[in-house]
Structure formats: C-alpha cells, structure tokens
C-alpha cells in the first residue's frame, strides 16, 4: 500500500507491508511529488524488533513482543528521521506543547515524567494549551529560529496535532521533592540535547545533526526544571519560561 504524507513540510511517500502505518499517519495525508520515498522491508521490521529488545534489556525490563505492523510504523519514522537533517530538521525525543502561539519542549530520559508534566500544563492552563507532540516531534532550525512540528508519532496516548509552532524554549526535567526552575546556558544544554536527539546512522547526516543542535542552542532558551507531580510545577515552569520570553521580546 502506498500513500503520500506531509511531514514537517516534506512530502513523504510511504509504501508499507502492513496497512497500520497508513492509519497511523492518516491525518497527514497529502498529494504531490514526493521528496522522500520510504519503502519498508521485513529486514526493517526485524531491525526494529532487535532495537526494541536491546532497549528493554538496557532498561532492565522484560522484552516486549510488538506486532510487526507496529514495528513497521517505527521503521518508517526511522527512515524519515534519517533524512530530515538534510532539511534542517531534527527529531528530538520529548513532549511539546503550544501556549499563546509559542511552543515549549520538555526533554528528559524515558520515565522521568515529560508527559506527566505536559499534562499538568493542560490542567493548569486548560484550553490555552495545545499538544504539539507528546513523544517524537520534529524541529526545524533555520534562519535563526526554530519551528516544532506535530507528527503522527506522538506517543502511546496519541497526543498531538498536525501543526507547526515557533519553538521558544526547551526544558530539561528532573524529578525532585520541591519545584524549582532555572535557566541553563547553551553549553550546558548541548550535551542534554545530544542525549535526546535522533542520531542518524549516516555520518554526514550525523554531522549535520550536530550543526543543527548548535543552531538550536542559539534559537531557543533552555531551562532545567526540578519538579514533583503537583500542578505547582506547571505554574512555576510556565511563569519562568513565558516571563523570560516576554522580557526578551521587550
């Protein structure tokens, strides 16, 4: 089955072995001459299974046995993410939301509570918050600015919209008893970003990824949030990051 989708403003033609990926991506359907053609193979699926089992072993949890159709959706995104640096675009693991026309990306190792913190923002701010992507957004860095895109790969709860929003801030989350947020320098942010960015297998694309991270460091502000799961965490994070942005604009 073959269908074309618009992912981060790039037309991607996907030919799959199973129909699931097309259902997964249906809100991103588009027409036009593809700029990237993705054709998955059984080897792609096996590779995803191996990667998944390896990650389970690293996380010290039982190996999860995913259906081939699901693994194929991962393989498709891997193909896309491999190519994206050529278009000044990176996949960054994190939960992204939009508030008043600007996006905020929460990044942290799996299990830290990115999605939980994003949920606190939705509880605190209600309809003013739109989820951009709760798991694997794409970020394009160009002309001194960064834009974050919703994608179909938006986490197990499928939280996200097919939207593009200027990225204002990246917030690294750590669990703590008390809530505290402070700005971090680009130099401190860089290694953290390296941990969360998708690393292409192609060396040239990897080098491009590192250059794009440099540009991202100049295009957004960076914060470290120590937080618990109380809604107060959302309040202090929002006030700090939004307040700083307003001061910068003035």
């Amino acid at each position: 089955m073959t269908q074309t989708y618009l992912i981060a403003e790039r037309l991607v033609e996907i030919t799959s072995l199973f129909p699931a990926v097309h259902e997964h991506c249906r809100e991103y359907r588009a027409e036009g001459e593809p700029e990237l053609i993705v054709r998955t193979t059984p080897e792609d699926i096996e590779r995803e299974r191996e990667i998944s089992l390896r990650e389970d072993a690293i996380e010290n949890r039982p190996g999860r046995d995913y259906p081939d159709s699901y693994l194929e959706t991962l393989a498709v995104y891997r193909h896309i993410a491999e190519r994206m640096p050529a278009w000044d675009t990176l996949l960054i693991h994190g939960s992204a939301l939009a508030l008043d026309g600007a996006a905020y990306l929460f990044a942290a190792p799996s299990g830290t509570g990115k999605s939980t913190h994003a949920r606190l923002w939705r509880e605190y701010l209600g309809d003013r918050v739109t989820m951009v992507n709760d798991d694997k957004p794409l970020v394009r860095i160009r002309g001194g600015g960064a834009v974050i895109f919703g994608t179909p790969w938006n986490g197990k709860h499928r939280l996200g919209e097919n939207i593009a929003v200027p990225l204002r801030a990246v917030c690294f989350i750590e669990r703590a008893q008390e809530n505290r947020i402070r700005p971090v320098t680009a130099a401190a942010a860089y290694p953290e970003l390296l941990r969360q960015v998708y690393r292409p297998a192609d060396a040239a694309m990897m080098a491009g990824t590192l250059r794009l991270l440099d540009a991202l460091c100049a295009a957004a502000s960076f914060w470290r949030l120590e937080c618990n799961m109380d809604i107060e965490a959302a309040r202090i994070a929002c006030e700090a990051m939004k307040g700083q942005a307003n001061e910068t604009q003035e």
Partner: protein
Amino acid sequence: MKLKSEFIAHRTGDESFLVPAGGSAFSGVVKGNAVLGEILARLQTDTTPEAIVKGLLEIYDADEAVIARDVDRALGELRRIGALDE
C-alpha cells in the same frame, strides 16, 4: 591510527564532543575540552601518538610529559569505545 568514519568530532563553544552515528555499538558521547578537540582534529587523518603530541606542543606551552600523558589517556578512552582504526 585515525577516527572511524562513524564517529563525528564536533566543537561547540569551549567544549569538544565525539558522537557516534546511530547504530554504533557505543551509544554514548565523549565530552572534553579544547585539548581533546585538538586530538580529535588530528585523528581525522592517519597519524601516530607521537605526531599528535608534537602537534599539541606547537600550540600549548606545556611540559611534553604532561601532553603525552593527556594524549595517552584520550587515546585509551577512544580505543575503549571502539572509535579508532589502527
């Protein structure tokens, strides 16, 4: 010896990084100072520990033994993560 092609050396600000492309057995990041950056720069092409030390002595006003120790330590770490072709 030289860096394997799948390992990308990168400098940002005062810091130097060595990052493997995706799929490498080593999935971490090596982070260091400008001296590491100079060592990595020299490993882009085939070289020797002695040539690296000589090159660094032209830049840094430091004791040769100290430079040699730093180079040896860096090469040991690069060897450990499988970043060197030798």
